[in-house]
């Protein structure tokens, strides 16, 4: 099993928090298997359980039930062995140290002082090495966190919403550094609530909602769903779902009272068709947000909305399944 060892193996994870408003089930029966070399995006709205799951993976929190294995180890062992490292959202830096001092200090914990120079280069911080952390831009601080995470040369790199609060240029520079790193074959799991980031940088997207995995597929599959639109209208003549589904470009049909909702990726053509050849009226076109995409993916009668994933050696068991 050694060559087949999973980078990340989460089973039946549960984690609840007590708040004044009651118990919050942050992670509620989450299963996930990540193979070595995958670049996985954890996509979901705020409160979906992304950060809690990452805390469980890193051993910063302990699950109420379920198991976490990181490269076959307990999280704390994986951390102690330097096999997993993480870029957290905010904080965690001493403002009065320079960039280089922060790296040298952290490298001393890993016993890898030689890794400081290469980490500076790969994070694009060579010019800022002598600068105090407190006077670095948000983007530079985030690239410093990335450089710190590179020091142990981890097998698994975890990033928790790494570009929150960064401007467009900073975000681009940051992802360029990550992409260069991913190209070397490192396993990467990043949380984000930007669909574009997941789309551009991950080869597998895991959608989280209410602490569960609600969809798991390739970027192409998720994009197809999330880029769709809903054309809804009131029909003056009754039509069956099958008749509606047979209209060109219709992926999926739902009914809300006297309105029909047609999911499509060719909304203009469908709207033109409905208005010119049928008695449909009160027509509305709305874009399908991520939340809507989740619902479409998880509703029991959801039609297969995306083409099957191209079969590769690793996607056969993971990326192809839309749960």
């Amino acid at each position: 099993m050694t060559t087949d060892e999973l980078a990340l193996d989460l089973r039946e994870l549960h984690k609840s928090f007590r708040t004044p408003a009651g118990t919050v089930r942050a992670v509620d029966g989450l299963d996930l298997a990540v193979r070595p070399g995958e670049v996985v995006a954890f996509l979901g709205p705020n409160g979906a359980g992304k950060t809690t799951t990452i805390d469980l993976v890193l051993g910063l929190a302990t699950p109420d039930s379920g198991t976490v294995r990181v490269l076959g180890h307990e999280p704390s062992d994986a951390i102690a062995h330097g096999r997993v490292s993480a870029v957290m959202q905010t904080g965690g830096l001493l403002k009065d140290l320079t960039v280089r001092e922060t790296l040298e200090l952290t490298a001393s914990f890993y016993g890898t002082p030689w890794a400081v120079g290469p980490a500076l280069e790969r994070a694009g911080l060579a010019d800022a090495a002598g600068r105090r952390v407190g006077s670095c831009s948000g983007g530079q601080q985030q690239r410093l966190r990335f450089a710190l995470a590179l020091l142990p040369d981890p097998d698994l790199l975890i990033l928790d919403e790494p570009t929150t609060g960064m401007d467009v240029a900073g975000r681009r520079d940051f992802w360029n550094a990550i992409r260069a790193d991913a190209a070397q074959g490192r396993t990467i799991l990043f949380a984000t609530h930007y669909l574009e980031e997941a789309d551009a940088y991950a080869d597998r997207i895991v959608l989280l909602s209410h602490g569960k995995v609600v969809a798991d597929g390739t970027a192409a599959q998720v994009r197809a769903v999330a880029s769709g639109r809903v054309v809804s209208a009131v029909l003056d003549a009754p039509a069956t779902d099958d008749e509606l589904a047979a209209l060109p470009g219709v992926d999926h049909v739902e009914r809300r009272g006297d309105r029909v909702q047609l999911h499509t990726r060719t909304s203009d053509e469908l709207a033109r068709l409905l208005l010119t050849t049928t008695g449909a009226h009160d027509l509305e076109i709305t874009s399908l947000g991520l939340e809507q995409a989740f619902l479409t993916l998880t509703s029991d009668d959801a039609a297969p909305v995306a083409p099957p994933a191209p079969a590769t050696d690793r996607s056969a068991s993971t990326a192809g399944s839309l749960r």
Partner: protein
Amino acid sequence: MTTTATTTPAVRTAPRTSLWQPVYLRTELRRLARNRRTVIFTLVMPPVFFLLFGTQSAYGTQSVGNGNVTAYVMISMALYGAMLATTAGGAGVSIERAQGWSRQLRLTPLRPAAYVLTKVVSALVFALASVVVTCAVGLVSGAHLSTRALVLGALIAWVGSAVFAAFGLFMGYVLPAENVMQILGPVLALMAFAGGLFVPIDGGVFATIAKFIPTYGLAELTRAPLLGTAPNVWAYVNVLGWGLVFVVGAARRFRRDTARV
């Protein structure tokens, strides 16, 4: 990137990291030395206060126990500086927790005990520096005392100041702000006055109040070798009592904080 194997070697050596972290200790000392406020509080203010309060010519000739009054002020200011150093060190821990540094450290192989040890040692190094600087200035400015009184007094000031590391840690949690020392500095000065550290308090209601001030006990113990008299029992009660309050308070806050992190 989907089909390439990971480039990482299959076998890794992972020695259990040492409690003794010289690079971290060096970095901490550099941070302290770089912090102008810390340097002023611990290395400049105590000897300056000594020069202001302890060097009147009358003090040089007035003798107390095994030395002169100038030495009495010197030993008191040495303790004051050590207290400032350890308080700042303790407060630094809670500030670092609030800033997420402790969380960042938990993502490295560094052991929590090594973190605490490094912070304690660096605070004690600065406390020792403060004691040494104040005593050096004192000895060249007219303080006379027996070697035994000097060594014992300096040692008690240094080791006893560790109680205030717990005070700083506790206060750092109660008042979590980056500039918490701007509050704790004046608070310590007030306590030093009220507890008879700056000026001895003889008799009256203030002397009674002084016995309940956290600086009182350590001041009495530190000056005992110079005075050549056994400290009164209230000094021990004071140090143990406040020590317990600070340690329990800090430990409770610390545990609650750790559970959350």
